[in-house]
């Protein structure tokens, strides 16, 4: 801290920079499970349907209705727990969380309180090249509420109950996150994982993945925790990052000015990246949790757990490991390819047909990704088969096709005719290279005859003239000669 003596004290110079504080952040992530039916009744769960069409007496909380277990939702929660090395609870009891709100038809939410299905576990993140392990407190199962829509009608709030009862898991971290960047990486990892597992589409904009952040700051070197503020309603990963960064700065500024602030729930304004007060924590509901008497305890036996484990797909960690260790791909390629489950699957299917893994990775990261971007389609809708890509690689490796004609001619043509045989398509396009030495030899002779002085110069040591001859032969072959063979044949004649 610098204090100017002899001058009027400038408050700005007194201000402690944000770097002097340590942020303490815990996240609560809600993931909507992609089960066919709701958590405790058979209603469908499809997103984007007409309001109040996916409801029933049960999800509307009609008198006389009762909840029942959804096996898939439980299995999805167990999958997530197993993927994150959590302890899976054998004896699960649901609980009721009681509060009144328009979008909560029963006046309580069925959730888990004292017996979450998963405890412990961790998520590994890499931020700016630094590895860090974020511990999880718990993962529990619960049902979603309906959706209050405040912007559909001038006077009234309208409620859509389609979402009411959709199964959720809530992932709660220990307060081990220290920055907006780490939070961003954490959510990235979680999203990647739920997509790999196929249990949630991970779409933050549509709200199928939601994140609340508990943020406090403390002076570095001290152990006194600051006042905790919860920020809600951040509907993208970058907004989570922005909100956290804003909130750290806001809290630091307040502390620097010697002000205190209250524990409260704040919203996020994506337009200017600021957070705003929603309600004080002192006003918080007493949710009166108690065991849900309408659902008997749910027992997850070892047999069931093992059965779920056996159904789990390959996880990002395992994919990365395979790419890195078995296929010897560079770290950059490993990251790009394992990032997305479908991309990784496509890559692995190419790799079933070729051993040139690096070439396969280049195709995926290059031509294929560009094509997907240009056409704005996901890889699931990409029509060229992984086998065809492997055939392209083989033609290149065999010298029958140049990299450039493969990428510039054959690939686009294949995209238009994905069912066509790769070789015959290349032949039609007249881009198959030849390694026929008689044919190439004739062209070489022609080139030598054209530039006898250059042949002389080469023999006198100007070996950089080799490119001239190669270029001449390639031109003469209309690009169909294999440059490698051309090179060799010219050398054979001149050296």
């Amino acid at each position, binding site marked *: 801290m610098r204090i100017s003596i002899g001058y009027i004290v400038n408050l700005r110079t007194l201000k402690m920079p944000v770097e002097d504080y340590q942020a303490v952040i815990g996240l609560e992530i809600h993931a909507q499970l992609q089960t066919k039916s709701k958590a405790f009744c058979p209603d469908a769960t499809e997103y984007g349907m007409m309001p109040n069409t996916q409801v029933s007496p049960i999800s509307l909380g009609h*008198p006389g209705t009762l909840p029942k277990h959804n096996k898939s939702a439980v299995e999805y929660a167990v999958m997530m727990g197993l993927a994150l090395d959590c302890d899976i609870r054998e004896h699960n009891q649901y609980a009721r969380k009681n509060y009144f709100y328009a979008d909560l038809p029963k006046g309580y939410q069925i959730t888990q309180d004292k017996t979450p299905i998963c405890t412990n576990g961790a998520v590994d993140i890499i931020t700016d090249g630094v590895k860090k392990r974020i511990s999880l407190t718990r993962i529990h199962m619960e049902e979603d509420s309906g959706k209050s829509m405040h912007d559909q009608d001038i006077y009234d709030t309208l409620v859509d109950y389609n979402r009411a009862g959709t199964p959720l898991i809530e992932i709660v971290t220990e307060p081990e996150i220290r920055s907006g960047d780490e939070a961003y990486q954490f959510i990235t990892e979680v999203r990647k994982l739920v997509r790999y597992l196929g249990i949630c589409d991970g779409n933050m904009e549509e709200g199928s993945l939601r994140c609340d952040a508990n943020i406090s700051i403390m002076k570095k070197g001290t152990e006194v925790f600051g006042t905790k503020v919860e920020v809600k309603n951040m509907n993208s990963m970058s907004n989570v990052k922005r909100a956290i960064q804003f909130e750290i700065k806001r809290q630091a500024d307040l502390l620097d000015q010697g002000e205190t602030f209250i524990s409260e729930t704040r919203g996020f304004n994506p337009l200017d990246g600021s957070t705003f007060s929603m309600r004080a924590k002192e006003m918080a509901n007493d949710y009166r949790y108690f065991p849900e*008497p309408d659902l008997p305890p749910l027992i997850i036996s070892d047999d069931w757990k093992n059965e779920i484990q056996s159904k789990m797909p390959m996880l990002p960690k395992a994919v990365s490991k395979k790419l890195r260790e078995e296929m010897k791909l560079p770290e950059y390629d490993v990251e790009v390819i394992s990032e997305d489950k479908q991309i990784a699957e496509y890559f692995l299917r190419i790799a079933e047909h070729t051993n040139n893994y690096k070439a396969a990775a280049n195709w995926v990261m290059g031509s294929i990704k560009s094509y997907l971007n240009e056409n704005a389609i996901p890889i699931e809708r990409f029509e060229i088969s992984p086998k065809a890509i492997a055939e392209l690689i083989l033609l290149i490796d065999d010298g029958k096709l140049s990299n450039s004609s493969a990428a510039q001619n054959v690939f686009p043509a294949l995209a238009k005719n994905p069912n066509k045989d790769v070789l015959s398509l290349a032949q039609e396009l007249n881009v198959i290279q030849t390694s026929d030495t008689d044919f190439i030899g004739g062209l070489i002779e022609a080139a030598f005859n054209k530039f006898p002085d250059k042949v002389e110069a080469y023999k006198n040591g100007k070996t950089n003239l080799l490119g001239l001859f190669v270029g001449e032969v390639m031109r003469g072959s209309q690009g169909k000669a294999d440059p490698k063979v051309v090179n060799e044949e010219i050398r054979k004649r001149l050296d």
Partner: protein
Amino acid sequence: MLYQSFDQIKSDLTASKISVEKLVNHYLSQIELKNSELNAFLEVYADEAKQQAKAIDHKIQNGEPTGSLAGLVIGLKDNLCYQGHHVSASSKILEGFESQFTATAVQRLLNEDAIVIGRLNCDEFAMGASNENSAYGNVKNAANIQYVPGGSSGGSAVAVQSDMCFAALGSDTGGSIRQPAAFCGQVGAKPTYGKISRWGLLSYASSFDQIGAITHTVTDNAMLTELMAGYDENDATSSQQEVSPYLPLQNMDRKLKIAYIGDCLNHEGMDAEIKEKTLELISDLKTKGHTLTEIDFPYLDQMVPCYYVLTTAEASSNLARYSGLTFGYRSSNSTDLESTFTLSRTEGFGPEVKRRIMLGTFVLSSNHYDAYYTKAQKVRQIIKQKTDDILKEFDFILLPTTSTPAFKIGEKSANPIAMYLADLFTVQAPLAGNPAISIPLSTHSIDNMPFGIQLIAARHDEKGMFEMAKYLEDIIQ
């Protein structure tokens, strides 16, 4: 009384001495005659019942197969769902609400050609012991209209008592079938928790509520219970245990070991005549060679408080759905979300329901949770364990259904605690989850009001319980 037992109805139908239509008309005429005074039926499905009767008669005439309950006319307590019919739990808050589905228990009886003749008054949301807590007026005991019929299934008991229907369904949370059955001189049974699906029963306290029947005889009660019992995928708490047939009830030809609770008979509130009649029955059974043992059960004073802490806790949550939002009563004075909740509930619920919601909210609040809810859960566990211990040693527990006969209308309504003590002998079975039945024992010298004797059996031993009850029924008669 036209018919006392369903066997008589069946044989008269077979002999064409009567038709289902005539039966329905009989009950309709009884309703016409008596209901304006007794107030048991809230709604009568006259045309529908007649049509169904004709259809069943038609089947009988053509020699087509009919369900096993052809000719059985029942009333439903107003907390059981029947598709396309109103259900209100005798509360203003469900005014005009129509159910979109039928309770499993009701459906299983309908499948056997039972006819539902109407819905029956009860204490609001089954909360009460006198049927004075209905938004639609109190029900009167047909034995003497100055007296309460008991509650909460008071309408069900009176409808059967006064021959306005042959049998009725009720629900029992802390005695709501057995106590009114005793006050009205009928047979009322509460099966094992989970025996009959609660799907379609408006919840009061989910871990206690059970549907059951009120009938003239033990045999008919066993028949209806058996048909309603058995696993239902719509109720996760319903028991998967197979239901073996209860009928025909076997004769009790073995020597039984029966426990009776001294703490009940010697309780300060115990009516002397009921005690005397109970002791007479006990010595009668002894002379028949059975072993009757007085046992200690020093939890009587804990049971009612424990019961009220747990049931009101569950009720405070179960009744949160009645908010004026998507169904039921909504206050016309509400202006926003908050006032919709508060005004609809303030205007829609009666005082006893509000009292129990407040109590339940209190015991679940974070500052009091451990002192009340957690403690009461522990007490419940002890009562369950002790009851199990007794029933390991004895075949049945025998005790009076109530400590007094029916009281006069208005007598206890100003004193909720006195009213709650009316459940003193009936809460043990639902606290422990055991089946229990009340059968008429005698009538009191004061105004001839009936009272009953109660049997508690081991969980899932409905068959044994009904056989023993039948045995007692024969002795008492």
